[in-house]
């Protein structure tokens, strides 16, 4: 059954090559059809992999170069349910945004679809691979295709700014990842994650291992857009064309957090695992900072796409907290959150795309009351806003409750209120925009909000010819999937169980290198969100509604205070500043790691 594994990646890549070769001779609609069919097939494969890997990981060695005497020669894909679940999310989002993109890029032929399929294949490879250098190659492939896709509507300076900041910052992040890989290879002579983990286990971390740990984690944090490495993200996601932005916000940056979980548990949990408190402190600290800074900045945006970019950053912080708890519950919650939240963010971005196509602007203040004719989009906005604010009992609520309960059990009772504050801020931002655009509430001007000059008028391409159903069906489907995820029977228990397997390094090593099936772990107790979780969920949703209501009050005192001005001023748009922040952040993280992990 492992034959399915490479197919999930090969299918989009081969289709991309075929479209490049033959696209010019085909009917203009054929590239749309091929791309949609491939993305749908990839989704089916990924969902099958989730089920096939539910008992033990699927290990596939390319070219049948399986390990001899415990030494891996070839490159392996190691598929577990969490990675396959993320691959399924990639497939679903890709299919939805390709349906939305039907006739979107009429004048550019097949190039968009080729880039898009390479991008999808690379992200899938990144989620499934079991080899560190292979991870870097997918990382670079998805990044390069993402830079190109981000700069697709290159006519405007803001698009150039976004794409350049994206390309430069992420390239530096990738260089750090590569340097970390080189150091680990120099120490162990291995590149396979299982082999690395085996070689590093049993000895406490020395300077070289800590430097490699810092380089890899920071490199992936840059990709993930954690504070203070997040500046590129708010510029890039705000200018990407809608079908691309769906995948950017829905899954691209969050793959960085998955990668951190992967390298920690497979590689570093041996040498660094002696200091779980220090690792928790570092990761949770960055996570909380990211969630709060992202949440506040999200609430201050009038540009819908930039609002979504900061929402992605804020919720990424919550995923990082889940990963950083270093517990099965935290990792399971984080992964479920990533999937439910990714679906809702994708849906919301598609709804924003509809607003752009129909009303030719993405500025919340300018759009005040103009969305009254777009009732279905308004409903999607509202449903996603409440879902993202963790309204019980829907998808993100269940995931957030897993993280919060895990935190409380570890004695971090102060975490749930902070995470709830972040979801109140982001949920309120979406609900405020919903009220203003679709109901005409609130004033038409607000000094608190940042407006962007230069409207993204290119989104109206092909507008009049495109039918509402084609635009609306993907958004509604993603909303329903994201909200309904919590109703899948036993999904919390199962993912906690799979997360426990994910965190079992010795079992993973035996499985990959010796082909031994992992001994079945004891089943986790059935998960029911506690009363506290229900209260936090309700507080988050009600708080978001209340805060949105306050923000829409016609005459309120201006809240523009000095700290907000300073926070906004940090997001200067200048690449030099961003790289300086990256350097400062790396030095701080590295210094703390050197102090705490010895």
């Amino acid at each position: 059954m492992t034959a399915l594994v490479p197919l999930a990646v090969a299918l989009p890549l081969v289709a991309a090559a075929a479209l490049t070769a033959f696209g010019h001779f085909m009917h203009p609609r054929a590239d749309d059809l091929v791309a949609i069919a491939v993305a749908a097939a990839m989704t089916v494969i990924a969902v099958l992999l989730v089920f096939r890997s539910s008992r033990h990981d699927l290990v596939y060695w390319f070219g049948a170069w399986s390990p001899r005497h415990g030494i891996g020669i070839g490159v392996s894909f190691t598929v577990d349910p969490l990675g396959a679940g993320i691959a399924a999310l990639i497939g679903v989002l890709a299919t939805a945004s390709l349906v939305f993109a039907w006739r979107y890029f009429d004048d550019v032929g097949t190039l968009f679809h080729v880039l898009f399929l390479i991008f999808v294949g690379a992200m899938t490879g990144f989620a499934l691979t079991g080899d560190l250098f292979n991870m870097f190659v997918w990382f670079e492939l998805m990044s390069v295709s993402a830079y190109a896709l981000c700069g697709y509507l290159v006519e405007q300076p803001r698009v150039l700014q976004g794409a350049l900041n994206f390309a430069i910052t992420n390239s530096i992040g990738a260089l750090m990842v590569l340097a970390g890989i080189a150091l680990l290879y120099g120490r162990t002579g291995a590149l396979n994650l299982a082999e690395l983990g085996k070689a590093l286990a049993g000895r406490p971390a020395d300077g070289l291992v800590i430097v490699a740990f810092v380089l890899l984690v920071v490199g992936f944090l840059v990709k993930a857009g954690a504070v203070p490495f997040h500046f590129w993200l708010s510029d890039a996601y705000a200018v990407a064309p809608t079908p691309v932005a769906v995948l950017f916000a829905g899954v691209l940056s969050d793959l960085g957090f998955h990668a951190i979980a992967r390298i920690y548990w497979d590689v570093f949990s041996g040498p660094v695992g002696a200091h779980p408190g220090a690792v928790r402190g570092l990761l949770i600290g960055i996570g909380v900072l990211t969630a709060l800074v992202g949440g506040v900045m999200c609430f201050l945006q009038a540009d819908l796409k930039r609002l979504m970019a900061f929402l992605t950053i804020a919720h990424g912080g919550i995923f990082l907290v889940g990963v950083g708890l270093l517990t099965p519950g935290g990792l399971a919650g984080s992964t479920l959150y990533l999937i439910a939240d990714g679906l809702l963010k994708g849906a919301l971005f598609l709804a924003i795309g509809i607003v752009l196509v129909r009303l030719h602007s993405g500025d919340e203040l300018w759009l005040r009351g103009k969305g009254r004719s777009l009732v279905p989009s308004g409903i999607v906005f509202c449903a996603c806003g409440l879902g993202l604010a963790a309204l019980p009992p829907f998808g993100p609520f269940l995931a957030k409750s897993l993280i919060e309960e895990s935190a409380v059990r570890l004695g971090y009772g102060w975490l749930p209120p902070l995470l709830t504050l972040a979801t109140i801020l982001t949920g309120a931002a979406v609900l405020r925009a919903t009220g203003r655009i679709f109901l005409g509430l609130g004033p038409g001007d607000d000094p608190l909000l940042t407006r962007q000059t230069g409207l993204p008028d290119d989104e109206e391409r092909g507008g009049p010819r495109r039918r509402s159903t084609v635009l609306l069906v993907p958004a509604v489907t993603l909303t329903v999937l994201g909200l309904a995820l919590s109703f899948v029977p036993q999904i919390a228990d199962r993912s906690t169980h799979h997360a426990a397997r994910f965190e079992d390094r010795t079992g993973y090593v035996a499985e990959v290198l010796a082909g031994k099936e992992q001994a079945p772990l004891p089943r986790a107790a059935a998960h029911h969100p506690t009363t506290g979780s229900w209260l936090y969920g309700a507080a988050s949703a009600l708080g978001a509604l209340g805060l949105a209501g306050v923000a829409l009050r016609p005459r309120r005192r201006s809240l523009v205070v000095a700290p907000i001005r300073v926070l906004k001023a940090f997001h200067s748009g200048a690449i030099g500043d961003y790289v300086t922040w990256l350097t400062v952040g790396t030095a701080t993280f590295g210094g703390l790691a050197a102090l705490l992990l010895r």
Partner: protein
Amino acid sequence: MSYAPYALAGWLFVIGLYGVVTSRHLIHLALCLNVMQSSTYVLLLAIGYRNRGTAPIYKGIKGGARVVDPVVQALTLTDVVVSVTVVALILALAMDARRRAGTADPDRLVELQG
């Protein structure tokens, strides 16, 4: 094995980073990024180097001869390919910036803020 290659790799990374931070021209910036990328080539090759080792081509050399690690050379080659793609893309964006916005100064391209 001397520490010089590692020091060189670190120096290239830092000097390239300084160039990226202070750059006022996109082509200059792309080349500074290229300098940073070179640091990883040096690092990788230094890690695989063995004193008095020869090229890892086994045809025509005596059995048991000392060779340098071929794996890092493959990694470096992959890295070169990736780096060239990135730099090419940034240069293409630089040309677009000059053509459409009339400037290649990254700071003057700034539209999105706050």
